[in-house]
């Protein structure tokens, strides 16, 4: 095969490698061929695009390629080749303002390098490339060009069950066990088909399985072991074969949701149960059987091999049984009874039948709405939302706002902060938009209506409305309830976190009255998830914003782009300086070497400087002792409010009652002083303060020793000065949230913006952002990264979303009835 055969469409790196390997073998000596290809095709490419900056004239970033060893397999310049590969793959080089190689040339050079590196075990690690955040390596324009016609399929696979599925099963067994499984780790999608189970997992699961087995054969009856425990009661008769048979069948139903087959009878019953029963009696037999079932690959993995019918091009459909599980776990953490029934009745083997079931599931209303009304105060479990839990989990993992609880915030700095409540607010925000199911992504990015949670026992409200059925709660809440009944005001239990939204008292009280109601926040302050305190906190550092992480998030989640990793050896720290804002301190990143990558992140992430690291909207950035400043400011505002209220109250009194009081309030109000922050140069002011104190103390010491007439006067003067000296608190600067959006592929949307609101509104209008969202949805529900073969699936899903007016249900229906979901085929049958 000639090297630059136009016939070769490199659809995935695997195919490409195969192609290159074949070409090497066909032409005989691999090395010689490799060198020939290098001289004829690669070197000219490097000469044209790289030498001018990385050759003998210029050596930018201390990196040159003009003397690189063309024989990659020698290994001498492997590190250099890896660097070149990464730059070309990510499109980072050549720089934008230089002439760009054609897409085809780029992909060919990429293929040639990675094939060479792979031969010596270097280059991209396939396990890493399989991670979700690497999926953006597949060119976005190619994916949505319509040029690639599939056919689409997933590989036959075992998808290890998720921690949630395991936890759900264990909780139904009413047994407290350790969680053996972990997700992918880090931020983002957690449940992926590439996960595996190793010895550490087995050890924990084995332990759990034994605990469960012990429980099942215990003489103490429970809901789960009721069909077995009769055999193990004291004085129980030896069970008949039929009774044992029934026990085994029930176990199969409980663990595998099916009846034992003939093969199972041979393997499980004869090969394990009977063997061990003969050894140590019925108890040992059943225990071994249960552990065997709970450790079997059928229990630990989801089988998606493709055991259904074959289509002419060799792809095989999932069998109806496989389909029932695949669909169950697409929505729930446990197998769905109706799906299993449909599979058992033979009504889940065509695309139409799958569509029917998906529609059925999507149309189910969350009738109880427990999530909205249930007092969540004491239940912060991960799995409190059980109506299609995996749908909400997608948004949690996509936006990553649940990580808010992982970011430590000092209590002294933000007494109001409660990450888990913010997280629940964000959950409700997502659910409120999904409920309407119109323009879902755009609403998520720009909606001004935020639900806020706080603890309130609904029964209190009902009792107040006169429903005496709930009189027990009056006793339960005692004084608290009496106070509500008397004043009609709801107490502030757990409402402090709403200060993150800059609510005034009136709005905060509205939240208390009707938690979960949508509160419309000012148009110029908030818009959508990216200005939601939960998201802002999740993407912040301990004591300040994290514009870099935020920018990276937008690039990778909304713009289908990939930001290179922090180069090893770079000390990713921004210098301390208490006179500058964080944004100003980050100026050092604008130096050429850093800016090459940081220009992809900072101009986006800095849009959120209008919020502090607790997610509170701000117009000014306070530098210096901001904690103290805010503390004093809060106190000042509190006093101001109290006295104003009193003033209002007293004004309404008759003349006699108010005499003196109004004047008093006025006097105090006039005397209230806003904490000072008008110090232009915080550092020097602080230094002055410290020097003064030192000098005065010294003088004081001096005068104490001197027995002099002056003494008293001087000392008194000093004491007064020392007592009156106040450290400067802070200095404030106006917020600068300007930035620039690039990479939407739409010149109307790209360009500078003033603030985060403008940014998210533009993002919400972008086609590329929508498609990027579709790609993430695909990854989550397919459990793998998309390839060019999945192009038809992605285009269809995107169209379904658009045509339905932005219905997430339509998007899901399209994905779950796509070839990528239904069909299996080995991508590399020869390997």
């Amino acid at each position: 095969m000639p090297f630059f055969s136009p016939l070769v469409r490199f659809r995935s790196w695997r195919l490409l490698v195969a192609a290159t390997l074949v070409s090497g073998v066909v032409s005989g000596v691999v090395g010689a061929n490799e060198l020939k290809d290098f001289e004829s095709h690669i070197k000219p490419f490097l000469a044209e695009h790289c030498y001018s900056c990385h050759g003998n004239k210029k050596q930018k970033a201390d990196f040159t390629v003009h003397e690189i060893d063309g024989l990659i397999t020698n290994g001498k310049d492997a590190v250099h080749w890896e660097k070149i590969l990464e730059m070309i793959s990510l499109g980072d080089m050549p720089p934008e303002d230089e002439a760009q190689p054609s897409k085809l040339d780029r992909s060919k050079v990429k293929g040639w390098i990675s094939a060479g590196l792979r031969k010596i075990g270097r280059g991209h690690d396939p396990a890493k490339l399989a991670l979700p955040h690497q999926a953006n390596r597949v060119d976005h324009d190619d994916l949505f060009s319509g040029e690639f016609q599939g056919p689409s399929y997933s590989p036959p696979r075992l998808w290890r069950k998720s921690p949630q599925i395991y936890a759900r099963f264990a909780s139904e067994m009413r047994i407290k066990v350790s969680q053996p499984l972990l997700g992918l780790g880090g931020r983002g999608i957690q449940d992926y088909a590439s996960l595996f189970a190793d010895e550490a997992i087995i050890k924990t699961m084995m332990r759990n399985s034994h605990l469960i087995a012990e429980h099942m054969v215990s003489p103490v009856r429970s809901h789960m072991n009721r069909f077995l425990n009769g055999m193990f009661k004291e004085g129980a008769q030896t069970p008949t074969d039929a009774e044992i048979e029934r026990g085994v069948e029930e176990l199969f139903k409980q663990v595998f949701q099916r009846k034992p087959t003939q093969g199972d009878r041979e393997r499980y019953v004869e090969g394990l149960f009977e063997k061990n029963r003969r050894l140590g009696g019925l108890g040992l037999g059943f225990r071994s059987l249960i552990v065997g079932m709970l450790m079997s690959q059928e229990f630990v993995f989801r089988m998606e091999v493709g055991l259904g019918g074959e289509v002419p091009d060799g792809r095989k459909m999932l069998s109806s049984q496989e389909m029932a599980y695949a669909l169950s776990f697409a929505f729930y953490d446990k197998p769905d009874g109706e799906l299993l029934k449909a599979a058992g009745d033979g009504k889940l083997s065509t695309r139409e039948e799958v569509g029917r079931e998906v529609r059925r599931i999507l149309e189910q209303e969350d009738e109880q709405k427990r999530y909205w009304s249930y007092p969540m105060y004491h239940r912060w479990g991960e799995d409190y939302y059980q109506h299609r839990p995996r749908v909400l989990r997608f948004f949690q993992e996509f936006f990553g706002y649940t990580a808010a609880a992982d970011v430590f915030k000092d209590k002294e700095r933000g007494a109001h902060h409660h990450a888990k409540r913010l997280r629940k607010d964000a959950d409700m925000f997502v659910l409120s938009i999904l409920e309407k199911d119109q323009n879902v992504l755009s609403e998520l990015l720009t909606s001004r209506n935020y639900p806020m949670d706080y603890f309130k026992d609904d029964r209190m409200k009902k009792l107040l409305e006169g429903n005496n059925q709930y009189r027990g709660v009056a006793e339960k809440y005692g004084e608290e309830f009496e106070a509500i009944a008397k004043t009609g005001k709801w107490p502030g239990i757990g409402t402090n976190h709403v200060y993150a939204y800059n609510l005034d008292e009136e709005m905060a009280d509205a939240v208390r009255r009707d938690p979960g109601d949508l509160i419309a926040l000012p148009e110029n302050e908030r818009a959508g998830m990216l200005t939601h305190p939960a998201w802002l906190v999740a993407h912040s550092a301990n004591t300040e914003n994290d514009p870099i992480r935020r920018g990276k998030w937008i690039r990778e989640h909304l713009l289908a782009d990939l930001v290179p990793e922090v180069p090893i050896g770079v000390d990713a720290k921004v210098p301390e300086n208490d006179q500058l804002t964080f944004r100003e301190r980050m100026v050092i990143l604008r130096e050429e070497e850093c800016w090459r990558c940081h220009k992809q992140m900072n101009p986006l992430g800095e849009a959120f400087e209008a919020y502090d690291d607790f997610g509170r909207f701000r117009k000014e950035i306070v530098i210096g002792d901001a904690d103290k400043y805010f503390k004093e400011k809060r106190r000042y505002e509190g006093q101001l409010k109290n006295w104003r209220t009193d003033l209002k109250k007293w004004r309404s009194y008759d003349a006699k009652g108010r005499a003196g009081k109004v004047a008093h309030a006025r006097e105090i109000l006039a005397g209230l002083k806003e904490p000072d922050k008008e110090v232009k140069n915080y550092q020097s002011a602080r230094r002055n303060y410290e020097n003064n104190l030192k000098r005065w103390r010294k003088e004081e010491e001096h005068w104490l020793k001197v027995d002099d007439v002056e003494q008293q006067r001087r000392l008194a003067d000093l004491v007064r000065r020392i007592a009156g000296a106040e450290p400067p608190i802070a200095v404030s600067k106006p917020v600068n949230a300007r930035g620039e959006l690039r990479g939407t592929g739409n010149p109307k949307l790209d360009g500078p913006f003033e603030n985060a609101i403008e940014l998210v509104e533009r993002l919400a209008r972008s086609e590329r952002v929508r498609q990027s969202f579709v790609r993430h949805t695909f990854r989550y529900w397919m459990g793998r990264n998309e390839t060019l073969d999945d192009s038809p699936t992605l285009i269809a899903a995107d169209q379904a979303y658009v045509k339905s007016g932005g219905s997430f249900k339509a998007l899901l229906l399209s994905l779950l009835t796509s070839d990528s979901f239904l069909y299996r085929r080995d991508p590399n049958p020869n390997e």
Partner: protein
Amino acid sequence: MVNRRNFLRNMGAGSLALAPFMQHLRAEAAGDPAGLPKRFVFVVRGNGLRPYGIVPEGLEEFGSDRLNLDKLVDRPLAGLKLNESMQSLEPFKDQLAIIQGLSSKICKGPHGGHFGVLGAYTSGDHAPPRKETLDATLAKKFPGIFPHLAFHIGTKSDELFRYLDISAQGKNTRTPAYASAMLAYQEIFGTVMTGDGAKIEAEAHRNLMDFLVDDVKSAKKSLNSNENEKLDHYLHGFEALRERQVKLNRMGDSLAKAAPALDDKFTSEIETHRLEAHFDLAASSLITGLTNVVTIRADHLEVRYQGFDHARMKEISVHEIGHTADIEGAADRFDSNWKQGREMRAKIRTYQMELISGLAGKLKAVPEGDGTMLDNTVIVFLSDAGSQHHTGYENMPMVVLGNMNKALKTGRYLHYPNYNKAGHRVLANFLMSLQHGAGMPVDDYGDRDLGLSEAVDQSGPLAELMA
């Protein structure tokens, strides 16, 4: 106390197949100390190990965070009184090395370098490990029946396992650690039973494992190579477990005799009790030769100490203790919080040193070769967060106990010059020293700190520490 000679003598003929023991026996008989296995204990705490808390009396100047040192300081510990929090280690002074000034700026993360501390590589917050860490490497070199035992203080008493964030068996594979001391006891010492009942259980277990191995093998047929790899992980897991059980069974009841005394602390709600149990288990496992490498996560930021007689400590987590005691600015204010923070820190540090001293004492009581087991052991105590709560990794203070059969020169206080000064060294150099001492002469380990000038030698062991 287990007397190892008696213990060995009492072992039945059936246990002769036990490789580690025979290895010891032969080496002991031949008077060949080099044949004795090396043992490694890594005790890693969170929140930083404060320099002022480990410097001996008279060397207080080296306990300052602002110390600017451009020459190596090397003082013998003999004649110096150890730091107040290290009084329990006085009896081991000649086998002690207190080391400061090694940097590890390849580590990132505001509260700890994660796998990077023992693996000498950059490892981000929440990210899975990139490669194996040194403790796992050593465990492979000196395998026991349990090649690598690990413990984690956990946060709740009903927690069974926890994956370590500082130790990895390989890429993407965190080291699993026992959080429950009871579970560890059962799995290490409680799995062997004697008599007919045991035979039956053992055979039943074998049947079960055979079944599971077959179960996985049968599934492999219908899958391609990628998916087969996934099942191979699963299969190897079963096979390793099966093999270990066979070895443990061979040890018979001698194992039960060597087990630590089972008491309340194994199931206690109090985290310090659990930690004591972890140290007991570590001692017994090392003494019986069940393992040669132990990693103990002695605390981490989420722990809330209930076991100390200190009201405030019951309320706040280690994370908050770190903020109260270390945060810049707090020190300038000299408020009572700050003093209280330091007080709490001292309590924890002293307690951890006492646990280490207890473990060392037990090893010292068991003769081995010409000396004791402690002579062939090294205990490394450090924090994954270096010298303070919010760390910059410029100084990774540590306490090293044991000289690995005179491979290390101990009984000294070593303080390396500041970051990037001539003569400065990195943590990786120390990790290489351990490898040299273990007979694995590695001179290039982990990621290089590119922020360091050429003048700083990042390869090879710490010459000053090697005998």
